[in-house]
């Protein structure tokens, strides 16, 4: 025991001397490293590293005037079938039940399909809507009413056929962990427009988080102050946001000030930027105690708004998240990320399929999405706010035959060659369709858009040249689109 104690003391002395050495000798070195870490070359992030201020208060400067000041990104995790909703393929109907042509299978890998699957005709009834003549199915009766606001990207494609890596690729530009997400880049580049709310808020529904976890809205190697803040959809939006009994606002304020003072001293000593993040988060949390319950309170919304979104105050749902997203952008939150889980229509059971299962997911989501667009428009927000809808990949024109067995329900496997996403508002064309797939919806044959191209386009709409918007980390400049991506100019109004 005594021996152990002595060993402990010895270790302590060792650690202390090392720390002291680093503190005295390495101070210059440390600040040097920090300077290079924070002296980012992308946006002129003035004040970003300057002093122990609030990193969110002073914004960066975009390379050109943004068309989209804010983004609402609706991600349907699991990936809905484009062939049932957006990409009408009458030819596929004719091949329904026939063997998949060999050329579609040679050298291809699928998540579950094995051997030779059968083709699966579209399950929805399609028609053209709006003056733009957008093809939409009867799964989306409400989206039809806003078709003329939307630009469809019909030939999206990606590199990954499993949920988690594909979600990471879509949101962080890389299929591996560790990169900042689109929302983090946006807030890092543009700053927050409201001092009392986080610049990047995440709302999830569908009973599960996206497969890739919190990394899809993380800050990666950016200071963690830029990561997405997840709020709850029902009840208290942020847990423990109200002061406990016996704690009044003044005591809370003093407590936080004291903690921050200590943190500031530590920052002066070690200059770890994460300390700044912590300080600003304490301050933000204090302000959020007032601002968040107010912003997230839907009880004062007019009844017809609640009806259009199909929500009841106090009950969390995807519809509620759409309404909250509107309220958040109304209060100038820069980036609102919505996730909804439950779109993985393999056909394995009564909910995960492209017939009834997909239909009931659409019944829950179609109306609030259309209501969101109408609501944004009515309030003069749509032209400043980019709404993005989509998933990590699409679904195959073939019916899934997991383990060589035909599934009990109509289902499709993950498909990376071609799928549909759409954007509305925020400087994209109204009533436009970009890209085409082949007659069976397998490959994009015209104007294909890779997820990196989508990222480049979203950044462009927010005022950034994706090739110049970088952050130095581990010896090189990183960017969201890595080494790829091309802005899809044709969809910009």
């Amino acid at each position, binding site marked *: 025991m005594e021996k152990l104690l002595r060993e402990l003391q010895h270790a302590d002395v060792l650690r202390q001397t090392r720390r002291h050495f680093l503190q005295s000798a390495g101070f210059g070195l440390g600040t040097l490293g920090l300077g290079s870490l924070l002296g980012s070359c992308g946006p002129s992030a003035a004040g970003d590293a300057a002093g122990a201020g609030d990193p969110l208060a002073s914004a960066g400067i*975009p390379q050109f005037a943004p068309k989209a000041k804010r983004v609402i990104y609706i991600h349907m995790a699991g990936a809905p079938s484009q062939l049932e909703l957006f990409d009408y393929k009458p030819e596929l109907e004719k091949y329904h039940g026939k063997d998949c042509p060999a050329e579609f299978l040679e050298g291809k890998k699928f998540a579950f399909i094995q051997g030779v699957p059968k083709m699966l005709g579209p399950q929805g009834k399609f028609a053209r809507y709006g003056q733009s003549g957008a093809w939409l199915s009867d799964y989306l*009766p409400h989206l039809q009413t806003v078709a003329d606001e939307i630009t469809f990207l019909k030939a999206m494609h990606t590199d990954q056929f499993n949920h988690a890596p594909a979600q990471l690729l879509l949101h962080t530009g890389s299929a591996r962990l560790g990169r900042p997400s689109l929302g983090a880049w946006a807030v890092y580049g543009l700053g927050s427009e409201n001092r009392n709310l986080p610049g990047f808020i995440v709302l999830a529904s569908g009973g599960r988080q996206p497969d890739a976890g919190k990394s899809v809205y993380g800050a990666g190697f950016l200071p963690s102050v830029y990561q997405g803040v997840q709020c709850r959809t029902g009840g208290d939006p942020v847990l423990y946001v109200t002061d406990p009994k016996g704690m009044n606002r003044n005591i809370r304020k003093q407590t936080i000030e004291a903690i921050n003072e200590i943190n500031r001293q530590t920052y002066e000593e070690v200059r770890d930027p994460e300390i700044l993040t912590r300080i600003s988060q304490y301050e933000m949390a204090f302000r959020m105690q007032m601002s968040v319950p107010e912003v997230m309170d839907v009880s004062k919304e007019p009844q017809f708004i609640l009806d259009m979104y199909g929500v009841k105050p106090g009950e969390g749902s995807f519809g509620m998240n759409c309404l909250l997203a509107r309220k958040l952008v109304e209060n100038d939150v820069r980036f609102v990320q919505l996730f909804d889980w439950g779109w993985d229509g393999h056909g394995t059971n009564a909910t995960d399929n492209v017939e009834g299962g997909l239909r009931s997911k659409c019944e829950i989501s179609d109306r609030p999405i259309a209501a969101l667009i109408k609501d944004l428009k009515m309030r*003069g927000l749509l032209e400043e706010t980019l709404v993005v809808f989509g998933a990590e990949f699409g679904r195959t024109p073939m019916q899934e035959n997991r383990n060589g067995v035909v599934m009990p329900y109509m289902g499709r496997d993950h498909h990376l060659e071609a799928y549909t996403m759409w954007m509305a508002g925020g400087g994209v064309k109204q009533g*436009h369709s970009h890209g085409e797939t082949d007659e069976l919806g397998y490959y994009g044959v015209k104007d294909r858009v890779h997820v990196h191209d989508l990222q480049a386009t979203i950044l462009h709409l927010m005022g950034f040249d994706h090739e110049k918007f970088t952050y130095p980390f581990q010896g090189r400049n990183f960017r969201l689109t890595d080494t790829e991506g091309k802005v899809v100019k044709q969809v910009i109004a």
Partner: protein
Amino acid sequence: MLVPLLDASPWALFIGRFHPVLVHLPIGFLLIAALIELGRRTGKIAVSESTVVFVLFWSAVSATFACVAGYLLSLGGGYDEDLLGAHMWKGIGVAVFAWVAWLVKSDRIGSKIAFGKAVYLPAFAAAVVLTMTAGHDGGSLTHGDGYLTQYTPEPFRSLAGMDPIEEKAKEVKPITDIQQAVVYKDIVQPILEARCTQCHNASKKKGDLRMDELALLMKGGENGPALVPGKGAESDMIKRCLLDESDDNHMPPKGKPQLSTEQIALLAWWIDQGAPADKKVSELTVPDPVKPALASLGGGSASGGSGAAKQKESAIATLKVSPAKEADIQALRKAGLIVNTLSQDQNLLEVSAVNAPNFTDKDIALLIPLAEQITWLKLGGTQITDGALKDVAKLKNLTKLHLEHTAVTDNGLAEIKALPHLEYLNLIDTKVGDAGLKNIAASKTLRSVYIWQSAVTDSAVAQTGRQNPALQIVNGFSQAEVAQFLKAGDSTATKPVASKK
């Protein structure tokens, strides 16, 4: 060797294309020779006569080659006959007179010619003058008649009796209502002018085809008719556009701006419909595949209230102002306002009072030092009244103005209607009424105004909307619209009609 060259063989065209390269040699040589001669005769420089004669010799040689190449180039065809003839004979004249001037001075022959000395200067002068005029004709052949003097400035313009400069009168005017657009004049002709008529016009009719007038387009060129009315797919002009770009018969030629798929679809559709001269879109049948192409022209939903698909660029894309003083920005931040710079290099500012609900008319003076820089201003939900708008009117580069949930009225709007760049105005939940809307709608730059929960009446929205089709007036939803929305299956486009909740 020479005989096959005289046909339009590949060799002939290959050499012919060198005409623009070769032609500059005699021009330079002759002028140099003339300058040296001038300097010699006025005693400014000390050079022998043989120097001039040497340069003259090479002028004559290069002029001869230029003539040959020029003739071979002309075999390719497509030039205005009269102009070409004048250019050719003047060019030949340059070569001939250059040879004459050289001959009379040359060592061997010069002494044998009688009156040689008397001929020298006139021949030399003729060569120089002809070089100028032939050069001008050549320029007109390449760039079109009147290219040189197109932008003659005043007062020389009126002195020369020229018409005032056309202010790009051909500029395509935006289509406000696609259904009322005349297909040839508003859709087809602008495409042809943008992509075809540069080479198929009055002075440069390549392939003997002119596309600048409908009748001439119908007539066709040396390869027969350019189009077969009623049969787009069989029409030469469509087939050529659809050929692979590397194909020799592809049009427009490789390297020139190409037609988009939509443009080709529109041309083919117009021909399919019989290539009418004055039919409107609404009078023709529009098959489904053509609809997106038509929609891409904009104005597709002028009656649907969802605005033109193609807007003209906002003023903020081009505005550039001097940098703001940091102290002025800090003063705003101290007052609780958020100040962001819109983009690098432009120095425009975005100012928001979203965290300053107690902002009043008195605080508005803080904005004045930044009157040049502020282009987006959000004062929604603050305590401001009409009094503040007097100062807002001084923010001359303002493009977006949020006044929602404030006490502003028609009187205040009268103050800001003259803002020269205002594009966006949010008046939701204000006291603004019909008079205010009509007043502000007179603005030429304003694109969208939001008036839900204001005092504007439905009839004023409808009337103002009719008078200003380019202005998007967005109101709230009527109860009927909400009910219709809630009923699934509604297939009409969004149409924010008057009447509020």
